[in-house]
């Protein structure tokens, strides 16, 4: 057991760090984010530039095999790069779906020509990808997809609506799951496609979240044409393709949870008095600081277990589902407590009390979303119960019936 870098890891880290110092500015505080003051188009454009620079240096797709244009590196190298990159003021997240899920799916399932067309451009930042799975009636139950894919010769005609499409408004392509056969049971009539997000019939509307953010979109699809060559996997074999995509998602998740929550809490409490004493002397405050650390460092350690599995050539299993359970609830509790400490002043938004406050407030507003995105707490508990603990699945009445007969 060794948390420190192996000599190889240390060497890689040093190399990464040198490269980052030569190519980017270090962040000066935990809360500082790239792109403050830039508009959307400027941020995307900066992200494309940064992606190309990473690609040229071999950091764009570290773990991908060389035949896909990756660096053939280890998962650990990917993590080391991520840890180091986080200290710099560079665009992040924009290519996360592209590199993390969409392009690996394309690389695995597309015909060679299609793969050659897209994968190299994705890596260098020329094409950005999004994922179109969720629908208004297919959230936790992805099998409920109603977007219709009808085959007309060598083309498919797509009609329907997707939701929660991250970054749809700046993406060039997407992977789309649609229902190709309504007479098959729900999970057996789906097909996966590559969709051109600029194609006629694709209409994108931002979703206004309660946090004020609009990172997600609704995507309305009206008679969108997709050549059959852009199908991924077999007709009606989309469920299997989707599972492979989500497998990649699982590996990626958790990387963007805040790693310094207990420090924020300490920072906020350090300058204040609570009930006539320094706030940091109050045992309730200390209790929450300790709890914040337990959740947050726990999340890091769970990730470390997953990475250890990876580096041993295993796949992290369904037990990684506990990550988001710990993080989501932790964030809600910790951010909520931070606001509460200050009483009425905790209500003030975007205030003079400093970046820590603003950060904690935004966190409080995003916490309900964190508990939902990528699987609700309830879905994750089912995964743990069934796939880790071996308890029986939910009683299902919808699995074998033709989809069109399922009552809405």
């Amino acid at each position: 057991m060794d948390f420190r870098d192996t000599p190889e890891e240390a060497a890689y880290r040093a190399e990464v760090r040198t490269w980052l110092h030569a190519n980017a500015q270090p962040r000066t505080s935990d809360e500082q984010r790239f792109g403050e003051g830039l508009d959307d188009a400027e941020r995307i454009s900066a992200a494309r530039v940064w992606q190309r620079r990473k690609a040229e240096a071999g950091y764009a797709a570290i773990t991908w095999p060389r035949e896909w244009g990756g660096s053939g590196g280890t998962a650990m190298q990917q993590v080391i790069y991520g840890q180091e990159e986080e200290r710099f003021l560079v665009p992040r997240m924009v290519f996360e779906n592209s590199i993390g899920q969409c392009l690996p799916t394309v690389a695995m399932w597309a015909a060679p020509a299609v793969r050659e067309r897209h994968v190299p451009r994705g890596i260098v930042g020329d094409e950005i990808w999004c994922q179109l799975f969720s629908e208004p009636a297919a959230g936790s139950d992805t099998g409920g997809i109603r977007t219709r894919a009808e085959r007309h010769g060598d083309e498919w005609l797509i009609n329907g609506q997707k939701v929660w499409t991250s970054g749809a408004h700046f993406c060039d392509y997407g992977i789309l799951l649609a229902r190709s056969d309504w007479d098959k049971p729900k999970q057996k009539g789906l097909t996966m496609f590559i969709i051109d997000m600029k194609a006629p019939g694709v209409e994108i509307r931002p979703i206004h979240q309660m946090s004020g953010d609009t990172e997600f979109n609704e995507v309305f699809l009206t008679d969108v044409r997709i050549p059959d060559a852009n199908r991924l996997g077999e007709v009606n074999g989309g469920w299997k393709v989707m599972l492979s995509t989500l497998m990649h998602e699982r590996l990626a998740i958790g990387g963007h949870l805040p790693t310094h929550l207990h420090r924020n809490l300490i920072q906020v409490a350090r300058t204040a008095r609570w009930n006539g004493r320094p706030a940091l002397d109050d045992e309730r405050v200390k209790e929450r600081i300790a709890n914040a650390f337990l959740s947050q460092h726990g999340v890091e350690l769970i990730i470390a277990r997953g990475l250890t599995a990876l580096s041993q050539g295993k796949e992290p299993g369904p037990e990684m589902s506990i990550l988001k359970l710990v993080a989501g609830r932790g964030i809600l509790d910790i951010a909520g407590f931070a606001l509460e400490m200050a009483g009425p002043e905790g209500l003030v938004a975007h205030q003079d009390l400093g970046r820590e406050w603003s950060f904690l407030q935004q966190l409080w507003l995003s916490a309900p979303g964190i508990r939902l995105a990528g699987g609700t707490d309830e879905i994750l508990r089912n995964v743990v119960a069934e796939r880790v603990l071996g308890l029986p699945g939910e009683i299902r009445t919808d699995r074998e019936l033709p989809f069109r007969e399922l009552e809405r």
Partner: protein
Amino acid sequence: MNFDFSDDQRLLAQEVRRMLAETSTSTEIRRVLAGHATHSADVWNNLVGMGAAAAAIPEQFGGAGLGYLELCLIAEEAGRHLAPVPLASSFYLAAEALMRSGNEEQQQRWLPRIAGGDVIATAALADAEAWSTGPAPVFADGRLSGRFAVVPDAMIAGLLVLRAGDTLVLVDPAAPGVARHAIATLDPTRPCGEVVCTDVAAQALCGGERGAALCERVLNAAAVLLAFEQVGGATRILEIARDYALQRKAFGRQIGSFQALKHKMADVYTANELARVHAYYGAWALSCDAPELPVAAAAARVAASVAFNRAAEEGIEIHGGIGYTWEMDCHLYMRRARYLAQLIGSEHAWRTRLADALIREAA
């Protein structure tokens, strides 16, 4: 033993509910949310016009002269419908302070105008010592100086009741030396302002020893009344979530048939009812000025803050993704829950008050 409201009181509440259902709509609330209004004039005029807002103000001062039990039920309805009006500022806080401590002249001057809705009053009474990063306000020789970071409805108030140490003072917001500016908060449907007083002429509501007791009394009354708003809001968001869970389907079933959601809602219900009984007990203590009021008010505030915050959080979780969108009302409940829970000091400050009272009592 009669631990319930009377039929007459329930009838009044029903009338208020009917009015609020018609006027305190999502559309109306969102006008305030978007900054197009400081409050809902319709709702406010109705609440004042019905005599509901001034239920606890004696008739001699232009109120309905009903009592606190009535006002508690009205507060529950206001909370239920997220009424975007200065009910707490003007009635639970400012009028309460005047009734409990103002002299005859002060009462005659202000209470009828508050009761009639001609003046919106507000107050900032949370103990500055509870959480402080700056100096506490000072009142001496009839002059007040200090910063009041979060004053509800400050921008529309015609009268300010402010706290300096244990003294409550009346300040005319138009007086020289008063600077106000609007601030953004987590609940834009209830606008707040910052008030900075620089050597401002102010009138003490009462001085000396009585001041501390007065502050306690006003805060305890407000704690009970806000608890009813919280119980109303918590009950309503649970109903909304329940209705959604009955209608929404996944995996071929109503999502409300999944035991995880059933039990989540049962837990929310349990917390809500725990808050409700503590609020009722607070209402009783308030209505008869019982010696149990400090304990009852603190218990009501803590239980109701916990319940509404939780009900609102789980309301979103039960809805799933759509509950997290701006268009759905779930987040309005989550914001209001937070606003109500922190307005007169957080559950933690009140839990300390509760424990201190219990420890004294057990001595």
